[in-house]
């Protein structure tokens, strides 16, 4: 922006400088440092000068091929994420379909949204310990409830069984996030051009048809965005499984973040191994972000192209005598 001989463009650099500096110091440098540590033999409490291993990829190879715990942690992370995300997105879609259906005209949506979103705002650490206490054995609120309802004679030791322990972690994650996903999807539906719904109604489309033919395809980008952000969130899952059962029983709820934390900060100080594991996680997250980036860039470019086309068209039609055409 040049005006009256003053060049303001330098302010673009000045105003973004704090962001860039903070990013370089607190994100980029630590990431590169972590990557470097992944190639070294850095272990123990006292920091030593960096010494690259003779086989630089040894830590990575050990993790991927020999470390049972690490592979288990990747598997657990994936499993816990899928078991939480599939029901989460299905329930969120169902609620979205209900709440945005004009014929159903559901009342009290504001209150429902507030209540269904509520668990998301409460500290995950608090929720993890709360659920650990609720499922206490032999006498805890859930076991009391089960006996009250006559579902089981003997109390159930939820926290010692791998399946129930994993199930509870996935459930907590689901319970904390489906409200969030629902609100995002509803907002997405609100952003769809109402004319589409009107013409569908005129054509006599049923609720099902409208939802599957119009709503769902229009939500494509938002659904993919939700998917990727949820995947990265799931990949870094830490608070809930860490404080719920410390990864137990038998490492069945140990996630990759917990593995990293455990290797470096729980007495063994295996910084090199933890760093290599972080880098593997980073690469996975990087691939996922690349997908998101691709999606968003694609859309912006598309819009730009459309605008350009329109402009060219109107310029041409102006030249040719004002015939405009809307397609």
């Amino acid at each position, binding site marked *: 922006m040049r005006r009256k001989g003053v060049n303001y*463009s330098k302010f673009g650099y000045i105003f973004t400088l704090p962001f860039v500096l*903070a990013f370089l110091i607190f994100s980029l440098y630590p990431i590169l440092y972590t990557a470097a540590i992944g190639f070294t033999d850095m272990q123990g409490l006292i920091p030593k000068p960096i010494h690259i291993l003779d086989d630089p990829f040894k830590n990575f190879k050990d993790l991927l091929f020999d470390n049972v715990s690490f592979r288990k942690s990747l598997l657990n992370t994936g499993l816990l994420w899928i078991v939480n995300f599939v029901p989460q997105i299905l329930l969120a879609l169902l609620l979205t379909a209900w709440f945005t259906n004009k014929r159903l005209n559901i009342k009290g949506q504001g*209150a429902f949204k507030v209540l269904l979103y509520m668990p998301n705002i409460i500290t995950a650490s608090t929720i993890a310990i709360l659920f650990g206490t*609720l499922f206490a054995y032999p006498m805890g609120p859930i076991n009391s409830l089960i006996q009250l309802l006559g579902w089981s004679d003997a109390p159930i030791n939820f926290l010692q069984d791998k399946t129930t322990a994993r199930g509870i972690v996935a459930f907590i994650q689901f319970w904390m996030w489906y409200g969030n996903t629902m609100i995002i999807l509803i907002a997405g539906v609100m952003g769809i051009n109402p004319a589409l719904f009107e013409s569908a109604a005129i054509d006599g489309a049923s609720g099902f048809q409208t939802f599957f033919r119009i709503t769902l395809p229009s939500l494509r980008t938002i659904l993919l965005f939700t998917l990727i952000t949820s995947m990265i969130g799931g990949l870094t899952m830490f608070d809930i499984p860490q404080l719920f059962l410390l990864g137990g029983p038998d490492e069945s709820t140990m996630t990759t973040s917990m593995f990293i934390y455990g290797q470096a900060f729980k007495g063994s100080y295996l910084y090199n191994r933890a760093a290599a594991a972080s880098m593997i996680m980073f690469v996975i997250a990087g691939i996922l972000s690349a997908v998101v980036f691709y999606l968003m860039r694609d859309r912006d470019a598309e819009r730009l192209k459309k605008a350009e086309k329109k402009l060219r068209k109107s310029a041409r039609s102006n030249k040719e005598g004002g015939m405009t055409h809307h397609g």
Partner: protein
Amino acid sequence: MDNSPKSGAVNLKISRTIIYIVCILLALLSILPFWIMFVNATRSTAEIQSGLSLLPSSHFMSNLQVLLEKSFDPIRGFLNSFIISGSATILTVYFSSLAAYGLVTYDWKLRKPFFTFILCVMLIPSQASAIGFYQFMYKLHWTNNFLPLILPAIAAPAVVFFMRQYLLATLSIEIVEAARVDGSGEFKTFNRIILPLMIPAVATQAIFAFVANWNNLFMPLILLTQKEKYTMPIMVSLLRGDIYKTEFGSIYMGLALTALPLFVVYFLLSRYIIAGVALGGVKE
């Protein structure tokens, strides 16, 4: 599909009833765990062991007493969390707004690449750099210091992205030019004119930044080892330890105390929070 309007109306009524029942059950599912938490905070351990109750009892004070006799210090945790979250939030919203303003208002060579860069780094998880970050802070003697938990908040890519979208939709360049004609410097224009215009976006992002910082466990757990530096989520993790093993009443009390401020904030600001969640997802 429906042959008569009458059966259509009946169907509609049935669907509606089912939907309300499902929604009410889901709402109960959201409330019940916290309800039990608050109720059990007032019951003695013996009462809790003897069965479920949805009505409070009279052991509030004794639970609190047992809780505070041991290492759990909610006031300290609250203060530490408040200092960290408050400072981080201010830095996040101010510098993100500033960067977004620079991105929207000025025509500079690296503007496009910078935006691409923000999109690229938006989803990098902090866990991925934690080991290097810890080693770096250890060398600076910044472990057990709040600064490494506060200063990184200056670079919040997702917030810059959000602020940029907001400015693109609301800012008219005439305001900036009018300010220039009046002789206002660029920084002054931003601080005095633009920032006040951005209040709705700033408020939304401030709430989310505050809550995210408040609830963060991973980084503080790595960096803070001295008890007097513990944040609220680390304080909470103490309730899991052996010292409270059988004191269920005081465990619930501790959990309730840590959740209470969030409930208060949530019910005061829920309208804005829900609106903010919706905005954040649309990303238009």
